[in-house]
């Protein structure tokens, strides 16, 4: 229905053939490169593939980065605020699917260490990239190093956003839900 409506609209302006082709190419590119969110049985969901989308031309070079907010985690890795985590995760996921500039902060805690990740999504020269600038620290903040890594992909799963192959850090999960009680 939507395509027919678009066809009617574009036909009215006498460039229906070119317009539909362009829209379909763009839609195919988005679906093929970003993957689609496919809920599966048991509440699990996954996306494929995980590679960074490639767009021509780059749609977001001149756009201002969207701030998707901050996700703080507990000592068991679960989000302090699940609602906030869902909003932030979905915001970044949407931005990723559209290759729009965005940022997201993830704060992780362990027994006496922590890591603050700042994920940045950028579209540059027709290519989307995810950068993780991570500050590792040992409480009380005496050891403090910051490094940046490029992640090779992003996957939305039931437990949250999975940042894939972020350098030597490997995969990083940004939790979006609290696990059920054990």
């Amino acid at each position, binding site marked *: 229905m939507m395509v027919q409506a678009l066809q009617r609209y574009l036909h009215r302006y006498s460039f229906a053939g070119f317009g539909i082709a362009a829209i379909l190419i763009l839609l195919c590119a988005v679906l093929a490169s970003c993957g689609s969110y496919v809920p599966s049985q048991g509440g699990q969901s996954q996306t494929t593939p995980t590679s960074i989308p490639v767009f021509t031309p780059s749609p977001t070079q001149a756009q201002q980065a969207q701030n998707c907010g901050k996700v703080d985690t*507990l*000592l068991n890795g679960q989000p302090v605020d699940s609602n906030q985590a869902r909003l932030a995760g979905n915001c970044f996921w949407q931005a990723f699917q559209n290759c729009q500039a965005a940022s997201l902060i993830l704060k992780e805690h*362990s*027994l006496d260490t922590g890591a603050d990740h700042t994920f940045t999504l950028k579209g540059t020269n027709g290519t989307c990239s995810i950068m993780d600038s991570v500050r590792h620290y040992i409480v009380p903040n*005496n050891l403090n190093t910051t490094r*940046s890594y490029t992640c090779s992909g992003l996957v939305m799963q039931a437990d949250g956003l999975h940042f894939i192959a972020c350098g030597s850090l490997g995969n990083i999960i940004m939790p979006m839900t609290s*696990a059920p009680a054990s």
Partner: protein
Amino acid sequence: MVAPTPSSTTPNPPQKRLAYGGVSPKLRAPALRGQEVVSVPRSGGGNPGAFPSFVYNGGPVITCPWVYTSFWGPDWLSDPAHLQTAGLLSQFHKDLINSSFMNVLSQYGVGSGTGSGIFVQASFVSNVATSLTDAAIQGIIQAGINAGVYPEPAANSQTCLIIYLDETIGVNDPTQGLVLCEPTGDTAFGYHNFFLTTAGHSFQYAIIPALADACLTESCPGNDAGCSLHLYESQLDRRTQVASHEFAEMTTDPQLNAWYDPNNGECGDICNGETDYIVVGSNTWAVQPQYSKYDDETTNGAIYCLSQTPNAEPRLSPGPASRTAAAARMRQMASYDSLLPLPTLHFDARANAVTMDNQSVQDYVNKLFAPLSPTHLMTDFPGFLRRAADTLAAVKK
């Protein structure tokens, strides 16, 4: 898409040599006491292991830990179960030093294996605020030093103060990343740190909160599977597990510039959450395995978390240089067995008053003179001690 390599780094602190004074017992040998800072050329070779970035960064390590336990909060003295636990925790630290746990730390220059170190004394501290900042903790330690509860460290500090908080006390210092066993927002289960005393010496301490069920439930609500501690563990096991983590880190990286990996932290952090048990005599203790770079390299990453090894691990190179004098000093520590631990002290942090535990003093004297008693040797032992104290005070002036 892009090679996963760090695009920017914060360099490790520059290596430097610190000169410590003193007199060496060995002819024409430099004075070697306690923390040693030695720059050693880095060398390649060998397998990288799973954590090649875990390296020696030039700072001091504690070669022969002098361990003090200190129990903060009213529950330790008001509740018999807590008092018993305090005794067990002090015994844990005695046993830890005398266990094969120390064999893992020897590779980093901390002692030379089992028996490297001494347990000196326990103390109880009352009238502490229920919510502490790290600065407040350092203030109480400094007050304790001034009052004679804790020793003023030597220039080459070996002191390791392990502070156990009771259930009434938490740490709430979010600007430092420290929220421990507070009603909300916990960020850690323990930590170690150091500060310079007013006399200018480095004082190392570790904080072990109560780690009661309520603390765990708050920190890991709903599911503790992702936590490094678990509700199915006893509170004592949680405490000793965290204490072993902090003890290993405070000896191998007392000033946060010795052994660590900038991405993965110190030797305890890499194996965080693992539990193992050590047996010392009739006692079994829960501990956390520590990162062993030696095993990581020799197995090329297959094995790297160990709580104990049969023999002392060989010292790594580059690392703090092996010191004959330090090893000799550790062997001499056995001669202190009859003198240690010293009697327990009580410190009122509000009144700045120090007292000694009656029973602890009596037990200490009995142990010191066994199988005799002081009255077999002198008629007025307390008078003798008073005169000795007066004499020492006069000499000090």
